[in-house]
């Protein structure tokens, strides 16, 4: 018997040694669920492991995986019931079934739309967009547009076209309301410099903003390119409409107006714009897309609406599909194929060019259906790996150490502030019987406001304090949100749990499953019992202490 064990261990060791380089094949092939795109992701990512001689991390447990999927698709962790329903299921196709359910089941449509509305709102207008006094952006307007679009799974290219070409009023409830205009209403100052920069960056992954004033020091974009892109936006005006008799902006209307050009001759048939080189020489520009395609230079809206032309040109650009693939990939994997994800110009080559190109092509073939690309990535092998490192990928595949990501493990990251907020509501069942969407958003954005720090420049740049530093830790220790989550008053989550007919072990299990999607360890149970003694048998108070510790832990705040 002893000898047998020993031989067994030796065998294992040998297998490990033999399989070190090229070991990806030795692992059991992950399922592709019969989806071609999943198979191709798995193949190309494995190829990278072989090239770098990396052994991938083990597969994540069901609990770990389901927690991720809920966080990344719905923006919150799963409830205990949802967790158990999944882990108790035995079907080999259960992961595919869950992703399908979260994406397509009516029960989840609203949560899906709300989560991605939050994500896209932050991308399009920033965390503070629309919260300034007399802002030209209506945050509710932006959100309404996105929610409606995402709830009925509008194709992504249609959304982009609408955002780039929108006209109408920005505020819900006004005449000709079109929430899509809010992407641009605040970006038209200073000759629409922000509209130019953000449109290129967000949808095409091209950073032209540096070239506004000078040729780019290390990529091929020239100053001319910025102004040629800029020329597409020069018929666009954001008109303030005031509340009668006051100077308060009631809403803003985005319109296209004929543009006569900036030249002395004012010839609207060839509406030109001018910019200055650093040596003081002035140059002329007309609308030209990044790939060199030109349009009719007329400034008359009767002849040509420049933003509509831009929208059409963007639809054909390969940058459009690759940028989407990169963004979705980064959302699920923690890192994109480029860093930053929205800088995909020729100077910044991607880590997996073939895969990026393939995903872009496929999503274009599937009409830019967001739910399809989400399911490909969510069902892929690299997304299902553990965040635990092994000796072969611990340092070779750690982007924090400056290594390029090889996706041989799941990269831990902190929940976004919005995810934490929603997760706390889920974990404490506080989402039941909340007010309507607007009222919830109002509460949430007031809470989020404490983390947003503005940089004080005209580009509205901002950063967040919700980044693992002391203010965030203080908020988790002592803030209202966690106070409410650990409340022990009658009717609260904890008091109901304490009074339920579960036994004590089950109650502790419930807390750990609610927060971590796993059961407690022996030591954790032990400390829970010590706390019960310290609280002199007051179960609610002990649960409160445990719950506070659980919610404040790294394991809770990290998407792992």
């Amino acid at each position, binding site marked *: 018997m002893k000898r047998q064990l020993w031989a067994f261990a030796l065998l294992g060791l040998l297998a490990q040694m033999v399989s070190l380089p090229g070991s990806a094949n030795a692992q059991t092939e992950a399922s592709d669920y019969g989806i071609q795109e999943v198979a191709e992701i798995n193949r190309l990512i494995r190829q990278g492991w072989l090239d770098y001689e990396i052994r991938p991390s083990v597969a994540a447990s069901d609990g770990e995986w389901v927690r991720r999927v809920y966080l990344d698709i719905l923006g919150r962790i799963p409830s205990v019931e949802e967790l158990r329903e999944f882990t108790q299921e035995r079907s080999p196709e259960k992961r595919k079934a869950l992703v399908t359910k979260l994406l397509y089941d009516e029960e989840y449509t609203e949560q899906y739309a709300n989560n991605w509305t939050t994500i896209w709102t932050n991308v399009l207008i920033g965390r503070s967009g629309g919260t300034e006094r007399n802002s030209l952006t209506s945050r509710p307007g932006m959100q309404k547009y996105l929610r409606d679009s995402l709830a009925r799974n509008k194709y992504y290219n249609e959304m982009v076209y609408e955002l780039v070409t929108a006209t109408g009023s920005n505020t819900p409830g006004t005449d000709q309301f079109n929430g899509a205009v809010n992407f641009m209403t605040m970006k038209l100052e200073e000759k629409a410099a922000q509209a130019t920069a953000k449109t290129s960056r967000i949808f095409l992954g091209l950073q032209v903003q540096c070239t506004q004033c000078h040729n780019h020091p290390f990529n091929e974009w020239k100053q001319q390119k910025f102004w040629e892109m800029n020329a597409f936006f020069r018929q666009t005006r954001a008109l303030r409409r005031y509340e009668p008799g006051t100077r308060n902006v009631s809403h803003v209307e985005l319109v296209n107006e004929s543009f006569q050009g900036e030249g002395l001759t004012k010839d609207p048939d060839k509406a030109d714009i001018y910019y200055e080189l650093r040596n003081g020489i002035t140059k002329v520009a007309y609308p030209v897309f990044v790939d060199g395609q030109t349009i009719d230079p007329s400034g008359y809206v009767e002849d040509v609406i420049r933003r509509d032309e831009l929208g059409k040109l963007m639809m054909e650009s390969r940058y459009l599909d690759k940028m989407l693939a990169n963004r979705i990939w980064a959302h699920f994997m923690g890192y994109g194929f480029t*860093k930053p994800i929205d800088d995909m110009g020729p100077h910044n080559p991607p880590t997996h060019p073939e895969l990026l190109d393939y995903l872009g092509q496929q999503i274009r073939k599937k009409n830019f259906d967001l739910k399809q690309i989400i399911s490909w990535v969510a069902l892929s092998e690299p997304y299902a790996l553990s965040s635990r490192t092994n000796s072969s990928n611990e340092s070779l595949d750690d982007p924090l150490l400056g*290594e390029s990501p090889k996706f041989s493990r799941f990269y831990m990251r902190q929940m976004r502030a919005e995810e934490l907020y929603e997760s706390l509501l889920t974990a404490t069942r506080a989402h039941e019987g909340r007010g309507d969407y607007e009222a919830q958003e109002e509460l949430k954005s007031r809470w989020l406001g404490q983390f947003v720090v503005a940089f004080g420049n*005209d580009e509205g740049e901002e950063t967040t304090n919700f980044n693992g*530093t002391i203010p965030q830790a203080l908020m988790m220790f002592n803030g209202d949100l966690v106070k409410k989550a650990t409340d022990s008053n009658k009717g609260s989550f904890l008091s109901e749990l304490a009074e339920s007919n579960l036994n004590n072990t089950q109650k502790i299990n419930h807390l750990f499953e609610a927060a971590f999607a796993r059961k407690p*360890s022996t030591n954790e149970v032990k400390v829970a019992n010590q706390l019960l003694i310290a609280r002199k048998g007051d179960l609610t108070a002990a649960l409160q202490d445990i719950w506070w510790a659980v919610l404040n832990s790294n394991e809770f705040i990290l998407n792992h």
Partner: protein
Amino acid sequence: MSRSSTPKGMSRRHFMSHMTGASAMTMPALAMGNTLLNNAEDLKRRRKSAILLWMGGGPSTMDIWDLKPGAPTGGPFRPIATSGDQQISEHMPLMAKQMHNMSIIRSMSTREADHGRGRYYMHTGYVPNPNIEHPSYGAVLSHQLSHQRPELEIPPFVTVGGGSVGPGFLGMAWAPFSVNSNGQVRNLQMGLEDQRLYQRMYALDLIESGFINQRRGSAASDHQKILKKTLNLMTSSQMDAFKVAGEPEDVKERYGNTNFGRGCLMARRLVEQGVPFIEVGLGGWDNHQNIHATLRDTKLPELDQAMSALVEDLEQRELLQDTAIIWMGEFSRTPRINGNAGRDHWARSWSVVVGGGGLNGGLAIGETNSDGTRVETEPYTSQDVMASVCKGLGISLQTTFTSQNGRPMKIANSGKIIKELFS
């Protein structure tokens, strides 16, 4: 929020005794920080600090520190004489009386004219690189100077009223602690008796350590370090340093009733408490339009009042020789005035102001040409400013950090010393 920073009836020492005395639940990794209090007076006398006055948006230095009267690009402002050997803008009359303490480096020449890139470069001495995050000067200096103040319980790198740049590869323990200018720190109140808090911390530490031991990467252990710092801070009487409201009225008035004024006053209080690096932010310099009215009516009066008060106050308290002051933004603004009566981004020729902390005051170092479009003398960079500040504070320029991927990085990115600041 007006509360005392230690929980009711609990001194820090008392709290510590609970932490260490209870035997049933000893605290493993979260064992509380340093209580060594020795040679404090001696250390106090020699400890060095730095204050960065960060002008977010990029202020037009040729309207403030390097005027070009008569040049077509010069703008309407006139130069005035100062207590030092330089002239500055007529809208900085209070600073004019303090300029013997401060030197203007007029031959700054940098390459980054985008806000994000410029902010990163001026804060770190490196251009952004997708593969590595460099530590900001605040993180570097607080890291280097912390040993001089073992008794410090509050974060060594504080930013007031604005964002900064993070600690990069030095790790979250050196991240800036960000407060607003009235010194309110949110969520400081625990409202729990100390015994129970400590028991909760024990349970928390057990869960944290279990997760860290699973080797999932540094994010897990970074979190634990922050928890420890947070606990330190919640129980420290040193938090009083943030309370500018308690200063005498005439002092508050001298600094000005503005956010920046309160921020500068807080910086002085934090220096006295032993915080080695404080960044005070003043935004609103991105003046693409209507620049001169904006500077004259709002920006310069606010700056002049607060900055002059800070220099004067530090000098009177004999803190200036040990406290470096650095005034800068991410870049400056075009000599040319644009069609909207504004100036755009410009990095090629501009000024930074430094003083205190062992640096010579009263000088104008370097020169720009007659219309401010070019540097005429040896050009200086972000690295050179920082190298000089390091030397002034007694930090060796041979200090080398090793990034997580093993790359050696010299402090201040091998910047050269600006000689005039020392001769």
